[in-house]
C-alpha cells in the first residue's frame, strides 16, 4: 500500500462531499428537477434496483463479493410470474418467489458451502438461466393472462405499491440482520470465513440462506418489472439493473470483502443512483454517458471504502 495515510483517512468523506456538491449543483441547474412529479419518479425508479440491492447487500456482507446473476434472476422471474398467472395472482407470486429462492439456494450452497468463486458461479448461473428461459419460452415474449396482476401497479398517496413493498422488505431484512442469529452469522462469516469455520458455524447454511433471500428479493423485483411492462422477456435485462444494485451497495458503504454493511445504508446508495440517473436523463445525456458515470462512481466508492477499511485495520 503506497497511498498516504491522510488520503486513506479522508478519501471517503471527501468523495461523499464532492458527490453531494456535484449532485446539488446539478439539481439546481437542471430544469424540472425540483418538482413533485420528478420526486415521485425518482422514488418509483428505486423499486427494482432497491429490491435487487437488498439481496446484493446480504451477499456482500456474507463475504461472497457480488452476484452477477441477480438481474437475470429478476428477468427470468418476471417470465415465470407471467407464465404462471393462469394459476391466480397469489399462487403465481408465491411459486415465482420459491423458484427464485431455490435457484439462489443452489448457488449459495456452491459458493457459501464449497467456497467456489462467486463471480464465475453467478455468471455461469445467469447464462444457464437465460438458456433455460429461451428453451422454455421458445424465445417469445410472455404476456399475462387476466388483469389481476395490475393491482401491483396501483398507486397509493401518489406512489406505486412497489415503493411500499420495498420499504417493508428493507425493514424486514434489516431487522433480521440485526436481531436474529442468522444475521449475526452472516456478519461473522463475511468478516472472517476461516474463524467462522473454526467456530463450527454452518457456512453452507449461511450461504444457502443469503443467496435464497437474494434470489427471492430479485424475483420480487422481477414480478414488479413484469407487471409494470405488462409482459416479460429476456429483453427486460438490457439495462443496468444488476450493476446499479452493486453500485448502490458500494455507495452505501458495505465492505466488498464482507462483514460490514446494512440494508438501510444501501437504500441511500439506491437513492443516489436514482438521482444520478434522473439528472442524466433530464439533462439529455446519452446512455453511454450515464453508464460511464455510474462506472466511475462505483470505482470511486469501492476505492474510498477500501481505503477507509485499511485505515481502520
Amino acid at each position: 500500500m503506497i497511498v498516504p495515510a491522510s488520503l486513506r483517512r479522508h478519501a471517503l468523506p471527501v468523495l461523499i462531499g464532492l458527490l453531494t456538491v456535484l449532485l446539488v449543483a446539478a439539481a439546481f441547474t437542471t430544469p424540472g428537477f425540483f418538482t413533485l412529479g420528478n420526486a415521485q419518479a425518482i422514488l418509483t425508479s428505486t423499486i427494482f434496483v432497491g429490491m435487487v440491492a437488498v439481496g446484493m447487500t446480504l451477499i456482500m456482507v456474507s463475504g461472497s463479493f457480488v452476484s452477477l446473476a441477480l438481474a437475470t434472476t429478476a428477468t427470468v422471474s418476471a417470465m415465470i410470474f407471467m407464465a404462471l398467472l393462469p394459476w391466480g395472482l397469489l399462487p403465481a407470486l408465491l411459486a415465482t418467489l420459491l423458484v427464485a429462492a431455490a435457484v439462489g439456494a443452489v448457488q449459495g450452497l456452491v459458493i457459501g458451502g464449497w467456497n467456489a468463486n462467486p463471480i464465475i458461479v453467478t455468471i455461469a448461473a445467469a447464462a444457464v438461466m437465460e438458456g433455460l428461459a429461451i428453451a422454455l419460452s421458445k424465445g417469445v415474449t410472455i404476456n399475462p393472462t387476466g388483469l389481476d396482476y395490475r393491482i401491483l401497479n396501483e398507486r397509493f398517496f401518489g406512489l406505486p405499491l412497489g415503493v411500499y413493498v420495498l420499504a417493508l422488505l428493507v425493514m424486514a431484512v434489516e431487522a433480521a440482520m440485526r436481531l436474529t442469529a442468522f444475521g449475526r452469522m452472516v456478519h461473522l462469516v463475511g468478516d472472517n470465513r476461516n474463524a467462522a469455520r473454526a467456530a463450527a458455524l454452518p457456512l453452507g447454511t449461511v450461504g444457502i440462506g443469503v443467496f435464497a433471500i437474494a434470489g427471492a428479493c430479485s424475483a420480487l423485483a422481477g414480478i414488479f418489472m413484469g407487471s409494470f411492462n405488462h409482459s416479460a422477456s429476456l429483453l427486460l435485462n438490457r439495462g443496468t439493473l444488476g450493476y446499479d444494485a452493486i453500485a448502490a451497495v458500494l455507495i452505501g458503504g458495505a465492505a466488498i470483502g464482507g462483514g460490514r454493511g446494512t440494508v438501510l445504508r444501501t437504500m441511500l446508495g439506491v437513492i443516489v443512483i436514482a438521482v444520478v440517473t434522473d439528472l442524466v436523463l433530464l439533462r439529455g445525456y446519452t446512455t453511454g454517458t450515464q453508464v460511464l458515470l455510474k462506472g466511475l462512481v462505483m470505482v470511486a466508492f469501492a476505492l474510498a471504502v477500501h481505503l477507509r477499511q485499511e485505515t481502520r485495520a
Partner: protein
Amino acid sequence: MTARSRSATERQRRLRALIPFLVLILVAAIAFSLPLWSGRAMTGFAVFNTFQNAATLGLLALGVGLTVIVGEFDLSSIAIFALGGLLAVRFGETQPLLGVAVAIGAGGLLGALQGGIMAATGISSVPLTLGGFIAIAGLNHIVANEGILAYADYEVGLWLDSPVAGFFSPRSLIVVAVFALVWAAMRYTRLGPEIRATGADRRAARASGVATNGLVTLVFLFAGMCYALGGALFAYSTTAAKYDLGLDPFIFAVTAVLIGGVSVEGGRGTALGILIGVVALSLLDTVFLQLALPTYLVDLARAALLLLVVMIEAPDLARKVSAWRARRASRG
C-alpha cells in the same frame, strides 16, 4: 508435510497438468467420431473454423488467464476487447496498423491504470474491474455513437482470414505467436515463476524479493493489450465493431482458462494450457455447429460446463471429499 502427503500432492499436481490435454483428446475424439453417431463429418473447413474461433477469443482468454494466475480477476476484459475493436475501426480506416496500435495502446493504458490502482491501494480486483467494466462499457457506447461501426476496408479482413497451410490464417497465426511469446517468457525468464509466486502467496513472494506491485501492473497492462488486439483483429475480420458483445465471450474465455489448468485461486497455469483450453472449447463449438444445435443450446452447454468446472475447483468441496474419504477409510 509427510512424505506420503508430499507424493499425493505431487501426484495431484501432475494430474492437474494433464487435464487440458485429456480434455482436448476427449473433445477431439467426440469431434472426429461424429460420422459414427451423427452422420456428419469433421471436414478440413471445420478444422479451419475451429482455429478461427480460437483466434477470435484466444487473446481474451490469454489475458484473463494471466490475471487469474497472478491472483486477480479482470472483469473489465470483455469491455476492453470491445473497445479495441471500436478504436481499430475508428482509427484504422485508411491505415489498419494505426487502428491496431491505437487499440493496443488504449487497452494497455486501461489495463495498467487498473493494475496500478490495485498495486497502489491493495484493493481487490473484483470491485475495481467491475466498476472498470461498467465505465469502459459506457465509453464504448460513446465511441460507437450508440451504434455499430462498419469497417469499409474489406481487404484487411479477407487477408486476415485467408487460409494458410489449409487449417490456419494470418489471424490465427498472430494469436498463436502471442501465445508462444508468453509461453517462452514464462518458461525461460523469471517472469513465469514470479507471476505464479505472486498469485499463490503475494506476501511470501514480496518477502522473497519479487516486485509484486510492478508485476501485477505489468500483467494487467499486457492483458489489456491482449484484449484490445483480439478485439481489433475480430473487428477487422467481421468488418464491424459493436459496443456491447454480451457476456458469452467472457464465459468462453473463463471456461477455456479453467479447462486449461489455471487455478481460480491463482498461482497455477501456463499459456500453453490456456491455448489448449481455447482450442478444446472451439472444437466443442465446431461440434455443436456440425450438429446444427441452436445458439442458445450452445451457450447453455458452455455455461453448464463452466459451472461444472468451477464446482470441481471449489476448495472446500475438495476438503469435504477428502474428509469423507478419510472417514470411510478409518471405518474400513
